[in-house]
């Protein structure tokens, strides 16, 4: 479990094309645990894609950690289909071992983590206050990114993540 201010766990995970990705060495990274089957993740999806489009100088990484044996709609093949059919603005990574989700302490999909250029966790939580209100536009995530880009500490470093529980193997 990573706390605000802690060094964020490093990782390398493959995307839907098998290309490996890691957090930025010298820049800001937004790590978003998400999935295909959860209505909360789907409801927030467009706002997160839009944020990635708007913050081109931030590395955005979406990670699906769910057990795909019990939830086949979260399989790599289903992820590949989704990326092929939709306009994704960030790579969609598969955390097959669930080690990365465990290291970050991800609880839900979505669960958002923002890492600063020194590799420290600076925001963790929901994209904004209401999955049902697109006008909120991932405001909490954007606040954190704006603060870090301005060389400041996010004023709201932690919010409660809201969504479907991460589907752990053997749970």
């Amino acid at each position: 479990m990573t706390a605000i201010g802690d060094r964020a766990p490093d990782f390398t995970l493959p995307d839907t094309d098998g290309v490996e990705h890691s957090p930025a060495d010298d820049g800001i990274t937004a790590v978003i645990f998400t999935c295909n089957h959860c209505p909360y993740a789907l409801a927030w999806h467009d706002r997160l894609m839009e944020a990635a489009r708007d913050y081109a100088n931030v590395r955005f990484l979406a990670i699906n950690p769910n057990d795909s044996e019990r939830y086949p709609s979260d399989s790599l093949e289903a992820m590949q289909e989704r990326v092929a059919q939709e306009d994704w603005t960030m790579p969609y990574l598969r955390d097959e071992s669930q080690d990365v989700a465990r290291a970050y302490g991800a609880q839900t999909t979505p669960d958002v983590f923002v890492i600063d250029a020194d590799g420290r966790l600076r925001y963790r939580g929901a994209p904004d206050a209401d999955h049902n209100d697109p006008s909120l536009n991932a405001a909490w995530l954007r606040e954190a990114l704006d603060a870090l880009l301005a060389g400041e500490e996010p004023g709201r470093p932690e919010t409660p993540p809201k969504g479907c529980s991460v589907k752990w193997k053997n749970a």
Partner: protein
Amino acid sequence: MSVVPPVELLWWEGCPSHPDALADLERILAEEGVSAPVRMVHIESDEEAASERFPGSPTIRIGGEDIVPPGEGEPFTLTCRIYRLRDGRISPTPDPEDVRAAVRRAREDT
């Protein structure tokens, strides 16, 4: 106050949506002048999901009828249900107007 057949809300703890669904349901029952306690049914295993024909959390049934019938072949399992609001957006809970329409149908049929 009108009376309708039994109202049930089936839920699973892996989804945080059932309190919102219950609040919408109770508000709409009150607004429609319907007296019907909501029976909360906690689904805890895939076996229970199968035996209760539970397509995901939350599921609202009035008189045993799902207010938003699941699609053909939809599995009965421990998952979060994906609803479509009337404006097309995805939601973890049914559109309140779909709930209201189901309550009115049940009231008229009773």
